[in-house]
């Protein structure tokens, strides 16, 4: 897929997120804006998936460990054909399958439910272990937030992944620099992320998380499936990327975009 087409899909992730935020009256848009290119590069270029067979045993798995970015994943799954896009119009309404965090029981294409931070890498360890045990060569991808790295369970999982030699596990850190209360560097620094994971026995890579060519090339250059060292990709990103007043501003972690805000943001995104 040409890079421009991936860029279109990243824009689609952002605009759909804004649209769904308006439906719900609130949403985690800025945490989606930072990973829009990562989602586009993974889902439209890298993952071995088949929307017609969401339970295909040998599919690549994707665990949205930073579950509050689900609002950006739903449109992608709909766009790929996992379900009718019109279903998204019920986003967060009473009884909807689509809430602020992803639900594997109700949404085709969601490989695991998440929401509570710090669990996703352990899920990935279990999936990667099971895949290897079953003789499958599928990869398991986990998207983590940099603030999330303060959770101790992440490091329990990191230790286990390396000890068990899970080379088909890939963790991508959406290093968007902000938590709810401010800069991660001030609250509880995650850096040096690469050194920390490397010390746990991981191979590490560092990329510009908004550069689609770099992302795609990095994914393509990973060691072959069946390796024995888990892979970490630190994707340097900007929270709120794409809307100037949101970029690296702690004031836009969650909220509503209605009225003039909605129009302004949509105009800026589509510029």
């Amino acid at each position, binding site marked *: 897929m040409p890079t421009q087409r991936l860029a279109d899909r990243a824009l689609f992730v952002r605009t759909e997120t804004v649209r769904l935020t308006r439906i719900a009256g609130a949403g985690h848009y800025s945490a989606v804006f930072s990973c829009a290119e990562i989602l586009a590069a993974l889902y439209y270029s890298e993952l071995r998936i088949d929307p017609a067979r969401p339970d295909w045993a040998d599919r690549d798995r994707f665990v949205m460990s930073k579950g509050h970015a689900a609002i950006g994943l739903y449109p992608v799954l709909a766009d790929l054909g996992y379900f009718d896009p019109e279903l998204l119009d019920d986003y967060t309404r009473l009884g909807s399958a689509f809430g602020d965090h992803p639900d594997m029981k109700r949404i085709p294409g969601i490989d*695991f439910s998440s929401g509570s931070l710090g669990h996703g890498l352990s899920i990935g360890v*279990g999936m990667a*272990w*099971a895949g290897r045990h079953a003789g499958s060569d599928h990869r398991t991808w986990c998207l983590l937030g940099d603030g999330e790295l303060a959770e101790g*369970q992440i490091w329990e999982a990191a230790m286990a992944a390396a000890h068990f030699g899970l080379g088909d596990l890939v963790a991508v850190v959406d290093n968007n620099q902000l938590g709810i209360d401010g800069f991660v560097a001030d609250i509880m620094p995650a850096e040096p992320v690469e050194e920390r994971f490397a010390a746990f026995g991981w191979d590490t890579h560092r990329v510009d998380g908004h550069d689609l060519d770099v992302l795609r090339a990095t994914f393509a250059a990973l060691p072959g499936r069946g390796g024995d060292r888990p892979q970490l990709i630190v994707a340097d990103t900007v929270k709120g990327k794409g809307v100037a007043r949101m970029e690296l501003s702690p004031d836009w972690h969650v909220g509503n975009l209605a009225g003039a805000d909605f129009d302004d943001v949509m105009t800026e995104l589509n510029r």
Partner: protein
Amino acid sequence: MTAQDQSEIFNGTAAVGFADSRSTDGTDTRAIPAFVFGEELGVLADDDPRIVVLTADLGRSNRATDFALRHPDRFVNVGIAEKNMVTVAAGMAASGLVPFAATFGSFAALLCAEQIRTDCAYPNLPVRVVGHHSGMSMGFYGTSHHSLEDLAMMRCIADLTVVCATDANHLRALLRLSLDHEGAMYLRLGRGRDPEVYPEVPDLQLGRAELVREGSDLTVVATGSTVHPALVAADQLAADGHSVRVLDMWTVSPLDHAALAAAARETGALLTVEEANVTGGLGSAVAESLSDAGLAVPLRRHGVPDEHVPVGPPAALYAHYRLDGDGIAAVARELLDTRTRRNA
């Protein structure tokens, strides 16, 4: 089993003393509950490729090592990282496996409550969290190792089945039953020294308590380690002329409401007995059930009062809290006397 064979299982690390973990005092402990966990699963796994056993550096304590000897490729030791263990198990379950994740009950239920709820129960995955050495069975290890809150914490989690093992044969039945169960389970095991209640592997049905002794004056509703002393108490009370029914309420969630209603109607009074804090545990569950059914009968909740227990050998603690046969009989007499006075 040679030392070399064992070291392969343990990924090259020394396995000194592994064979000795069978017992701590030289006796054969094979026929007692926590210690048949690994052995029974090992046999079941011969025919069921979905079974995986995880532990958090307690494979000797819970004898998951018996499973490891038989199926080393399906044994996972995550180290002292219980939350990771439960969530890794959930990831495995989402991939078609049936993992049994075992650690001390206090760590399983208290440390991993959120992982059990969010990663296992909510997605309705077939993870079996095994909390062993429950209650006060770790005695002088102290508060951190006492598991008195796990029943209360686990039974308020939706879509989580909570069951207690009574003895070795009962545990075998629970493990077999679990293989056909779709959702998540919490299996509460004792220390592995519970005397035999079931001479054979019972035919259990989830949601159906086992009537282990018939009686008409009072029903003792016990679970796990308290079923045997409840039977001892019933024998003592029979000598006094009291006919005491004993229900093994191993199925804490779902609870056997029908058996409780029948007990209330037919025996007129209930005594719940549990090796747990009485707040929120089996006694609370039974009180809720009777209340919901509109059955107002004398009920006494007997267990550990709402306090942190002192250290001491388990047997001493059971006597201290009147959870041995003599103690349960004494509490039952108080309840029977109260009812007799009220009816006089």
